[in-house]
């Protein structure tokens, strides 16, 4: 009787010990499984589609064709490589300007001044509006015939500019809109970083006779580096997957000459307009690898910087 109860107790104890040791795994398991399915299934399915010739309908039978899609995509100099190039130009061009402008704004707002609260709210406005609405607004402003931008130029005697209506000016104009929208985000992140810095290194440099530029370049910026990297990481991921702005302004195929066709727009067209799911999946996998590579570069540089 006693033995059995002891045995039971020890069995319970053993079980509870086992549970206790793996507590964090057991409780996290449902969420982890859920997330794994949610991330794993789409990637797995895309990988599967990318090695088939799925076309028309995903449910219609598709044949396994190995890496043919990848080969087709990587040798496609008509659409794929120009789109990849545009994705890079758009992302890193806009990002560079946003970083510099964001830093300038953050430095301006750093030291307390009157109406600081209001200014902070005001610069945040472009960032909190819906991208689709913003895209439609800028499309109207830059309309070649009735747009406000050209009328404004007319008042100061400058001839109308093509903005969105010529292939050469489309991407820069789109980058301008992106910069307008997302500079505030960078500014806010950097401002948060600046306000958390301690004043002492700056004061020490001041006593040593460093001027404002030297103090910024050799003291503030190095201290701010982790925050800058976070901003770059967040923003570059976001910019790489820009879709709404480009699609609303230029539509299917990125305009008549594919002048605004980034990889995202290209994939959308491949899958939803051409119903070419095999090729679209291959492009997505390649795009995914490209993003992983860029992120690896960024984080790798960060580790290197710490050394």
């Amino acid at each position, binding site marked *: 009787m006693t033995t059995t109860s002891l045995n039971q107790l020890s069995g319970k104890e053993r079980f509870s010990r086992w549970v206790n040791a793996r507590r964090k795994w057991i*409780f*996290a398991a*449902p*969420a982890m499984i*859920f997330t794994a399915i949610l991330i794993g299934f789409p990637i797995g399915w895309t990988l599967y589609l990318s090695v088939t010739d799925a076309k*028309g*309908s*995903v*449910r*219609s039978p598709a044949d396994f064709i190995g890496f043919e899609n990848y080969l087709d995509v990587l040798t496609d100099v008509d659409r794929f490589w120009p789109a990849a190039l545009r994705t890079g130009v758009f992302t890193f061009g806009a990002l560079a300007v946003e970083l510099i402008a964001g830093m300038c704004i953050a430095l301006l707002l750093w030291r307390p001044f009157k109406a600081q609260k209001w200014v902070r709210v005001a610069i945040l406005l472009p960032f909190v509006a819906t991208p689709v609405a913003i895209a439609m607004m800028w499309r109207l402003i830059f*309309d*070649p*015939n*009735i747009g406000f931008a*050209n009328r404004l130029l007319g008042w100061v005697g400058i001839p*109308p500019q*093509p903005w*969105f*209506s010529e292939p050469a000016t489309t991407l820069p104009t789109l980058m301008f809109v992106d910069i307008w929208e997302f500079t505030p985000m960078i500014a806010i992140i950097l401002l948060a970083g600046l306000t958390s810095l301690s004043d002492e290194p700056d004061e020490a440099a001041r006593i040593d006779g460093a001027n404002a530029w030297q103090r910024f370049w050799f003291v503030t910026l190095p201290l701010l580096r982790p925050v800058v990297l976070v901003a770059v990481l967040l923003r570059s991921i976001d910019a790489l997957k820009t879709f709404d702005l480009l699609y609303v302004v*230029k*539509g*299917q*195929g990125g*305009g*008549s*000459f594919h002048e605004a066709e980034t990889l995202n727009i290209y994939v959308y*067209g491949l899958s*939803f*307009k*051409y*119903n070419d799911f095999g090729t679209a999946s291959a492009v997505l996998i390649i795009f995914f690898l490209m993003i992983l590579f860029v992120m690896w570069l960024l984080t790798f540089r960060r580790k290197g910087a710490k050394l």
Partner: protein
Amino acid sequence: MKFGSAKRVVALAAAALLSAGVLTACSSGGGGDDGGSKTLNVTLANHVWTDVITKKISEFEKESGLKVVVNQLSEDQLVDNYKVKLNAGSSDVDVMMYRPLQVGKLFGQSGYFADITDKVNDAGDWNWDDFQSGPVGLTTYEDKVVGVPMITENEMVYYRKDLLEKSGLEVPTTMDELMNAAKTIKEDNDGVAGIVMRSQASAAVTQFSGFLYSFGGTWEDDDGNSTIGSDEAKEAYAYYGKLLHDYGPDQISTDMSWPEAAAIFAQGNAGFWIDASSLYENVVSPDKSKIGDQVGFTPFPEGPAGSKPYNVAAWALGINAASQNQDNAWKFIKWATSPEMTLAIQQEGVPSARTSVWENPEGTSSFPEELAKAINVNGKNGVGNDRPLVVGVAEAREIVGAPIVEAITGGDSDAAADAANKKFQELLDSEK
């Protein structure tokens, strides 16, 4: 310590519950209706037809005892929506409004449509034989009827009576006269374009089709080979491009579809506008147009091969093959396309595909007289399609549309036509 771990347990349990909740929500989302549900899901495009029918749906609900849920989308969103839902085998679309020319072949091949051949033939008074044969051909896939045509349209020349009068011009009847009239209007009126038309590569294809046919060209020959590199096609490309490049709006964009072009015309900033006849409300109605009382209508002008505008079934109603509610879906389609309803809708200005309505004076009374006459002429000369009839219509439109924008921007459209010819041939070969 004890308190902390208890809190953690509660938090984790909540997280687990939440994720389980999300999972069940996901799994129940795709569930279908039980056979013959009282709720009917109808997906419609933004169109004048839809505006009229949605006002009358309560009558149908009363009559049938069904509840109709309308999901209304723009043309592009509509197709994307179908592609996502039908690809996933979803049953929450019962009745679908679709464009037979754009997706008929693709959806037919993918098995998205329910076969309604028996339903239309057994419908008695509803009278399937009353539908025009061209449109019916477009809603038939491999000898099975898959849709009921609702709206027809053909290519119409809209013009400004006052501007023509001011410049002493006659209404153009040939391509040369049209070019000359556009030129004169542009020269006589500062800041007004001679003509405005679609300029976005794939959107322009449908309106370009009338020019292609009237210059004697086609998309492909009887053997399925691309013919858009032919001399006739090159002439048509060059003509369409010259009209817009020389006599279009000052700042010509390559992004215009019909809403942009219609807006320019309705603002009084162009002498001519060529687009679908069914869009006339947009430039005639006083709410939308500054020049509504000055708009004239004339049949498509003659080219070297005569006047050959497109005349097509623009929209049709079909039933989702995966729908669990097909009998009720058919009830709705039968009601919405009945002779009485068709007459009522046509009286609101939507051209229908029923012969009887066009023979009935009541059916044409609501149209401006000139428009009804021009539709009639276009209908007689018309060609039954306005784009390449392939599975990959979207891709084909981008390919054959490229020379149009090349010509509009003043580029070498002959070379672009040759390049497009090669690509289009590849597309045709890949579908063989």
